[in-house]
């Protein structure tokens, strides 16, 4: 038994926001008590006064690089970074080596996570075999092995007919495609958002239209056949507008953005900072404002960091040759908490974006809520803690973050996954390694 005592319990899924005591037992939430803390409690007590107690955070878009690129990250280190960042669950993309397009790979991930993970790992399997965009993968057996959704993330499914068939085939089974929306012809050769910064620095541009054309296409295909679609890492104004339009049309289309897209703009590329290189690229200020609006009005359903670890030399090079992507699991929560300061979201809405939303999109049963009977995944957040993100804090194997050296506000004080404390900065509360 575990008692999380005296925190502000925020659980949008059960419309709760108030002081309470969360009791965990047998890997489940037993109950939430109001009023005075229960006396004579037999079990571990986590003092949470002055902190938030929320359903375990879920990042639905990470790259754990396992199997195949374990020098960048593995399931152990990636989930330790997740736990330190307040995440009890992550959904990992299929661009491993071998690609997660077979039961064997899915099982490897699930089993290794069970053995070595500090957080729950939900594999996302490939839409097409080998991510080659040619043939459908075997969705049912992948789902049986544990895949929660399908995505060729890292690249788009270029062939619209194949996308249509895959989405249509999946519809009766309720599977969702997570789309890396990019028109690769329009984006070809680009390395930065097509705007003044790229022009000035002489970097080939990636136009916003490369993303928007693909989002529009995917939405129209979903509409045609009534499929379930999720748009990944939305970074442009029109991308948000298209998602809003799809929603108004009553389509089952959801969308995520990443903290970097509402925190940074392409101005971060000055000096050819390779840690600001990613795909989609950091966009302009108007796009950043639109992402904030999309979060505020509920168009965007989830914040996911697109954690993409790379070894140092792939970033310590000329800009054009640098790899895309940044690590994000340990900075996603504080960067999202910064939205509160701008009054863009309420605490409850933030928990929705970081937990309830992703749980709903991926149909993760008993996750994303603290209702009685839910899984004992809980994050205790100190929204006011001030800290600096230093290289020594990084639990990933890779250090590719543009946020190193940043002064951040807010962090996970404790992360409890399946009733086990996997991360803690609270004195007297020990975490399992």
């Amino acid at each position: 038994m575990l008692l999380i005592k005296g925190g502000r319990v925020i659980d949008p899924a059960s419309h709760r926001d108030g002081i309470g005591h969360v009791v965990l037992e047998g890997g489940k939430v037993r109950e939430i008590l109001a009023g005075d803390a229960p006396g004579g409690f037999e079990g571990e007590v986590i003092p949470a006064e002055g902190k938030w107690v929320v359903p375990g955070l879920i990042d639905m878009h990470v790259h754990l690089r396992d199997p195949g690129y374990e020098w960048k990250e593995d399931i152990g280190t990636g989930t330790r970074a997740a736990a330190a960042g307040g995440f009890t669950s992550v959904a990992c993309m299929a661009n491993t080596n071998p690609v997660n397009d077979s039961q064997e790979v899915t099982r490897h991930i699930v089993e290794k996570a069970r053995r070595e993970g500090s957080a729950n790992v939900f594999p996302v399997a490939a839409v097409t075999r080998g991510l080659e965009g040619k043939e459908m993968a075997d969705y049912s057996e992948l789902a049986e092995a544990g895949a929660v959704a399908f995505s060729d993330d890292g690249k788009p499914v270029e062939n619209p007919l194949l996308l249509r068939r895959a989405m249509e085939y999946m519809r009766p089974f309720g599977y969702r495609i997570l789309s890396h929306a990019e028109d690769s012809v329009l984006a070809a050769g680009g390395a930065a958002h097509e705007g003044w910064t790229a022009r000035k620095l002489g970097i080939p541009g990636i136009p916003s239209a490369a993303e928007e054309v693909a989002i529009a296409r995917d939405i129209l295909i979903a509409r045609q056949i009534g499929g379930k679609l999720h748009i990944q890492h939305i970074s442009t104004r029109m991308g948000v507008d298209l998602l809003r339009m799809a929603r108004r049309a009553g389509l089952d289309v959801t969308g995520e953005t990443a903290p970097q897209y509402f925190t940074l703009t392409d101005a971060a590329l000055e000096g050819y900072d390779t840690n600001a290189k990613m795909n989609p690229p950091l966009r302009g200020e108007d796009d950043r404002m639109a992402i904030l609006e999309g979060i505020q009005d509920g168009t965007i359903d989830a914040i996911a960091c697109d954690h993409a670890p790379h070894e140092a030399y792939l970033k310590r090079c000329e800009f054009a040759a640098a790899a895309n992507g940044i690590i994000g699991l340990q900075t996603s929560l504080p960067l999202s908490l910064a939205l509160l300061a701008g009054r863009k979201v309420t605490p409850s809405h933030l928990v929705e974006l970081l937990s309830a939303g992703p749980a709903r999109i991926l149909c993760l049963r008993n996750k994303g809520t603290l209702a009685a009977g839910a899984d004992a995944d809980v994050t205790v957040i100190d929204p006011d803690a001030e800290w600096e993100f230093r290289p020594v804090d990084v639990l990933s194997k890779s250090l590719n973050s543009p946020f190193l050296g940043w002064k951040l506000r807010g962090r996970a004080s404790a992360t409890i996954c399946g009733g086990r404390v996997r991360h803690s900065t609270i004195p007297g509360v020990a975490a399992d390694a």
Partner: protein
Amino acid sequence: MNWRRRHVLGLSDFQPEEMEFVIDTARSMEEVLSRDIKKVPALRGKTVVNLFFEASTRTRTSFEMAGKRLSADVVNFSSATSSVTKGETLLDTARNIEAMKPNILVVRHSASGAPLFLSRHVSCSIVNAGDGANEHPSQGLLDLYTILKVKGKIAGLKVAIVGDILHSRVVRSDLHSLGRMGAKLWLCGPATLAPREMERSGAVVTSDIREAVRGADVIIMLRIQLERQKTAYFPSLREYSRRFGLNREIFSLAKEDAIIMHPGPINRGVELSDELADCERSVVLRQVESGVAVRMALLYLLAGGSHAAH
């Protein structure tokens, strides 16, 4: 003026006084070049490595000549393929060369920002000899110097740059050198190669060559880089030449004493008509002359010279 610079990576942070200082030094160098014995011992015992990751004959030769005129030991390292495809990283290549203790690395690379990147990781001086579509600072300075020689001033001149603006590092350096000295710049090319965002630099962007050339004091024609045409930016060279080529008729719209410049190599009959390339108003070869002097000045200043050489 005290020269405190360890590298010359671009002109984006060069103030007018500093550019004038380099030009003054280049003037002294040009005096050396007019002598019978065109060599001074200023850089004796110093080593300059031309580290070229992109094919180039004239810029490399110009730097090599500049170094040799100053008695430096000049070594050429060329790699037509980029370091990435070769399997060695750019940094490893540069560090290998650095271990041989050169004083100055003159770097050309197809990736924008590559010399800046190297300057953060090696201890010798870096001169950018052209990086991707970013900058070509010695070209920006030699263009400035050439115009000064002919026109005596920069401020108030209308300078039209015509061609592939998008991929041109010459444009980005000229915007700093000529722009900061007070020239009014017009950038002209097909809309696909003359992006509207470039107006943020303060220049006028147009696809109408007549408008760009009308009343101009200086016309800089850029080479249309046929090798960049992986996907077409315009229908054909024939069409390009018709819309954006400089011929006698278009040139007649410019000021009577207007000059024609070109960073070379020229595609005769494409961006510049054959007769104009050789006409008395073309200062293309004077640019080449100025180039050696400007590069001598840069090497000299980086190697520790503090004022005009004698």
